[in-house]
């Protein structure tokens, strides 16, 4: 009976190609995403729980977590502010060079991160253009966590801009006009009417930027200076383990990054789903 109803529901599907496209998608996801993750777990299985704990709780590694999380948090917050501003400018105003600025937003995606890292390191080193300007003020960027945050911010800003931009484009200008016609000042209209609409996208974009920063390696490695306990990031710790052919150790640390990222992504998705349902009245 069951197989009969199943077949009938299958034959009534109007859109063609479900079997083929779904099959290819699943194969692709398995090869590109699931297989490497399985490999990672395979490596992990060679460790006992105590060994695993010893690796991930080693002082130098824990310090790298803090550096990475701290710098990523700062980078994400900075990106939240400037990404929102950039999206706002790109959507709400007309100005010459708008198209160019819009295209530039994707540069961090297109540029090899190592190139970005080298460029930033050169610019902000003590004798670089920016470094020379900042040095008399007593600000050192390269080889400090500020440099790490800067590199993270550079590589992850498109996430914020590109998630906020379409939402802002969808927001009719009538909404602000309505708020203003009711006597709201610009600040109040922004805070009470526009921000609540952008909020989910902004949080999502910031979250994505944060997760991206946690795993960033190429752009950071040149500017970080990589001083143990001070400017070493977690991705570097994995790299160091790999260079020592300690695959299990590398996998252990990598699993921490993986779980943190996955948990964050999941949380963002669930939260955003609830918000969107509320806004569009799915819960009637």
């Amino acid at each position, binding site marked *: 009976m069951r197989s009969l109803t199943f077949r009938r529901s299958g034959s009534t599907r109007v859109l063609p190609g479900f079997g083929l496209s779904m099959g290819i998608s699943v194969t692709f996801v398995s090869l590109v995403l699931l297989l490497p993750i399985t490999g990672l777990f395979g490596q992990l299985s060679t460790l006992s729980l105590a060994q695993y704990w010893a690796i991930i709780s080693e002082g130098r590694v824990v310090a790298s977590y803090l550096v990475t999380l701290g710098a990523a948090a700062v980078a994400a917050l900075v990106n939240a502010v400037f990404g929102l501003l950039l999206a706002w400018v790109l959507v709400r105003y007309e100005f010459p060079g708008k198209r160019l600025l819009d295209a530039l937003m994707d540069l961090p995606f297109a540029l090899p991160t190592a190139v970005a890292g080298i460029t930033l390191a050169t610019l902000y080193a003590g004798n670089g253009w920016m470094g020379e300007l900042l040095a008399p003020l007593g600000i050192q960027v390269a080889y400090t966590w500020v440099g790490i945050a800067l590199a993270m911010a550079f590589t992850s800003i498109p996430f914020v801009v590109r998630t906020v931009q379409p939402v802002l484009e969808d927001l009719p200008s009538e909404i602000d006009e*309505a708020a203003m*016609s*009711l*006597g709201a000042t610009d600040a109040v209209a922004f805070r*009470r009417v526009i921000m609540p609409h952008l909020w989910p996208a902004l949080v999502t974009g910031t979250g994505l930027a944060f997760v991206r920063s946690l795993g960033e390696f190429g752009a950071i490695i040149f500017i970080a200076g990589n001083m143990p306990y001070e400017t070493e990031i977690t991705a570097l710790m994995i790299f160091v383990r790999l260079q020592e052919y300690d695959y299990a150790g590398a996998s252990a640390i990598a699993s921490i990054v993986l779980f943190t990222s996955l948990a964050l992504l999941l949380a963002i998705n669930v939260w955003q789903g609830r918000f969107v349902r509320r*806004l*569009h009245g799915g819960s009637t």
Partner: protein
Amino acid sequence: MSIQLHNIAKHFGRTQALEPIDLDIQDGELVGLLGPSGSGKTTLLRIIAGLESADTAPTAGRILFGERDVTHVHVRDRRIGFVFQHYALFRHMSVFDNVAFGLTVMPRRERPSKGEIRARVLRLLEMVQLAHLADRLPAQLSGGQQQRVSLARALAVEPDVLLLDEPFGALDAKVRQELRRWLRRLHEELGFTSVFVTHDQEEALELSDRVVVMSNGRIEQIDTPEALYRAPKNRFVFEFLGEVNHLEGRVQDGMLRCGDAQLNVNLPDGDEELLLRPHEVRLAPSFESGVHLPVTVTAISLVGAEVRVELEADWLAAPWLATVRHADFERLKIHRGQRLYAHPRQWHRFKDETARPRQAPAS
């Protein structure tokens, strides 16, 4: 509060959206701005609201609300209520919070107390018959309900004038009819001065105390609905206010001819175009001397108080529409493909002064 516009004009870039316009609206009046799309009616409404600014060159116009010159007053300080075609409700706020918005954003000194805001909002929701939906989100309401929320929201701040931009344009016919009647009643009760934009002549004629007919950025006629319908000033107004049949031909010796059609008219020789409303066309099985307008029935619509009959003939550029009483329809046994003769009860004629070309945009 009365509204006076002096010499209000508007350009968007180099195109002229509004020619200089003067308009006086009395205190408590309900005025409809009627015109086809692109006639400048919405632009005019938005200028009154302060959402758009009028041209300041070559001559600056003035907008007065009562004695108050609001030409340079920002929209938030004009004390207007604005209702948008697509409601523009705040989707993340409940119905209650939407209506309360205007009160809660008042400067602290003028803001009513929480309890008073609550009472006022509930009273307004009662008035728009939505009190039971106060906690819902806009997305959970129908279009008609959303538009009523939007109206309550606009009225909450007790505006001097209420402006509505195609308020019923996005609703279906039945709801539109209902809301129209309801707005009329509300206006009679509260007596606010109100201007609304519409492209629906029926809506404008039914709702307004006076109608402003616009086309191509200028005012064609301002009159009461009755005067407008009975005595349209020009051809545009006549054509826009209802369905029109055209009869084009050449007059010679008091007889208008067009193919094998003939009509006795008392006009000087020359090319003429006559206009007839569908109810001014009578149908008969025979012709009379001086009236020979043979037509063929091509379509019949029985719905409504009258039967609508579509007529074609080779002397007609576009088909005519005639409305026939059901009794006559049965007496004549009208059916598709039947040959009949049209008899004008009355016709209209407008001299070409209205077809003046649009002014070239000032550069």
